[in-house]
């Protein structure tokens, strides 16, 4: 329970359905820091809200201290990825490596049979007859509310993890979730949606990376596609593929806007060029998690390459254990290493992996 409306409603729904519900919140960073900069940190307010919701729906509530695990499994990966010239996806790591791993184990030790979250996604259990070579027992699907769907962030869940996952709001539109929160008088009914990375409340990820790894702020060069130097920057971690704003470059002589095309951390270079050069047709994915049996032949899928990307038709080949090659029917803009490539058949998640190139 983060203290947000989605996990609050998830808990309230389960309690109303008569389940024996334990509310758990994760304390992920030092509360003392929040005290000194009161008002800037969302976490203490979030934990307080979760506690108030738990009291309102009459379930026990505990705050688990996962500061160390969060630092080791999510924050350090986040920093390492930027330093390596990639663009991380911390929520997906948090889901797969913390919430449905460490937290789920802890919940299991308290006697819990399942772990519910406020994600907009659905898990369905197939009957014995339906289990086939195409679909395994637990099917992960997009949330009913397409505009809120979070299945992209859950692609790394294994069958064992899905077996214990429950998403009570996944089959409802967000408006209905808010309406239910108001109906039940939950104290968070009108709280705004969270949008940003939870551990960077001031949204300054560059400053965060530099604070965690002070030596990353190193002068480097912007180069064009032919290797000509066109400007100077203060570290590759400050850029993301497809970025146009904040480059501090005057546009090319012809007046075309410049975009980040590639990051070369070893040379401290940021490659820039016109938007047309961002188009690519193939990507390589690693640590691929298949929610169907690993396909032996190329399969057709709609592949989503970032949170707000409309999944595009492609052919996916499992090239080696944990590896896949995706070939899109039409070129895609800004295929970004560090983000996830998630393979869908309609609403169903077939699998996904981390974009390497």
């Amino acid at each position, binding site marked *: 329970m983060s203290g947000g409306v989605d996990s609050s409603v998830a808990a309230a729904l389960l309690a109303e359905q008569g389940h024996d519900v334990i509310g758990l919140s994760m304390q992920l960073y030092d509360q003392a820091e929040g005290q000194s900069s009161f008002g800037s940190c969302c976490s203490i307010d979030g934990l307080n809200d979760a506690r108030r919701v738990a009291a309102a729906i009459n379930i026990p509530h*505990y705050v*688990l*201290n996962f500061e160390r695990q969060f630092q080791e499994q999510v924050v350090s990966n986040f920093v390492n990825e930027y330093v390596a010239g990639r663009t991380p996806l911390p929520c997906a790591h948090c889901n797969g490596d913390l919430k449905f*791993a460490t937290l789920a184990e802890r919940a*299991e030790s308290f006697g819990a049979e399942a772990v519910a979250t406020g994600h907009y996604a659905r898990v369905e259990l197939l009957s014995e007859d339906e289990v086939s070579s195409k679909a395994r027992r637990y099917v992960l699907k997009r949330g009913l509310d397409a505009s809120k769907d979070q299945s992209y962030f859950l692609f790394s869940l294994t069958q064992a993890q899905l077996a214990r996952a429950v998403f009570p709001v996944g089959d409802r539109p967000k408006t209905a979730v808010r309406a239910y929160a108001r109906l039940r008088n939950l104290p968070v009914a009108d709280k705004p949606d969270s949008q940003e990375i939870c551990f960077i409340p001031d949204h300054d990820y560059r400053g965060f990376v530099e604070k965690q790894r002070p030596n990353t702020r190193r002068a480097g060069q912007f180069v064009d596609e032919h290797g000509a130097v066109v400007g100077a920057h203060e570290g590759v971690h400050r850029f993301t593929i497809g970025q146009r704003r904040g480059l501090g470059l005057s546009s090319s002589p012809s007046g075309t806007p410049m975009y980040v095309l590639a990051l070369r951390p070893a040379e401290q270079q940021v490659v820039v060029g016109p938007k047309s050069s961002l188009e690519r047709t193939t990507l390589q994915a690693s640590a691929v998690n298949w929610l169907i049996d690993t396909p032996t032949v190329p399969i057709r899928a709609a592949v989503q390459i970032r949170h707000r990307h409309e999944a595009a038709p492609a052919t996916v080949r499992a090239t080696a254990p944990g590896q896949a090659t995706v070939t899109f029917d039409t070129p895609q803009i800004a295929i970004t290493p560090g983000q996830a490539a998630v393979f869908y058949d309609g609403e169903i998640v077939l699998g996904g992996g981390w974009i390497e190139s």
Partner: protein
Amino acid sequence: MRVYFDYNATTPLASEVIEAVARASRDTFGNASSVHHFGQQAKAALDDARSELAALIHGDPSEIVFTSGGTEADNMAIRGAAEAIEPTGRRHLIASAIEHEAVLNTLKALARRGWRTTLLPVDDSGIVAPDRLREALADDTALVSIMHANNEIGTIQPIAELAQLAHARGALLHTDAVQSLGKIPVDVRALGADLLSLSAHKFNGPKGAGALWIKRGTRLLPTVTGGKHERNRRAGTENVPAIVGLGVAARLAGGKLGAEAARVAALRDRLEEGILGGVPGTAVNGARGSRVPNTSNISFDRVEAESLLIALDLEGIAVSTGSACSSGTLEPSHVLRAMGLSTHRTQNSLRFSLGMFSTDAEVDRVVEVLPRLVEKLRGLTQKPVGARG
């Protein structure tokens, strides 16, 4: 069956206290500073409570200043004495490393304002050695603050001996007796202290009422300024109903101190033996021979205390991982750390604290439930790191 074994965090109220507080809330609503009948009734109620409390600690009623609780009493003692003594040139404060946060953080605040502070170490049984105080005392030491009994492990400090050492160097001795009052005899004269803090809700009284005993003649500047309440020592309209409850709780505590201590000690010892015998890899923290009778602090090897606390609560058993005031922090217990315990062990420890309403059946329940929970949690920690469940 719900079991409450967290009496060091707070205690349930004695039924006589509940009645007295309710009666005073209804009938004695006057402002104790008012001249009229209603004020006189309230003042009389405060005087009665002051006398009951003075009798319990063998002090004089005029030496007692009511506060909102133990934390305020500690602040008043240390800040008030420091400010009164400052003009003499004394600028040094001493406390033990295992004090409550109310003392430690007050010292830190004064350190930021230029005071030198020294924290005395404790031995591995959680006791302050008088020699350490002897070494730390200086010509400009203003005040020494050592708790009578520790809240996490229950160990009793040799206050009388420490007070003599402090006085020999012209320093005052303050003792935080929040965790000893009502559990063991507290005699301010025998202890030789100059200042003593206490809190009603730790001995079956209500929250929001405490007191600082100030030995006659001890100079103290008020930390809460305003009207002329409490002989000009603590401004603010007195919380009459809660103070009435404090008085009743003090009378009850004094009346059955010996018998109750023996009863609770027998329960605590049976609980402790049951856990040590029933759960492998357990050990008691703190000197077993010099503890308040109700407290047992136990380490459970290879179990995160935070998880065991929650698992116990889900079984209806309320205990704590140390001080209730530090829950929610990742910091290992400063008390167990000061005793030299490994970080691992400081995060494996639970505090069981018993009291007035504790029963044999409750002890049986805890001893029965614990082995199963510990075994389950240990099974979890043996999985390789990063394994998915």
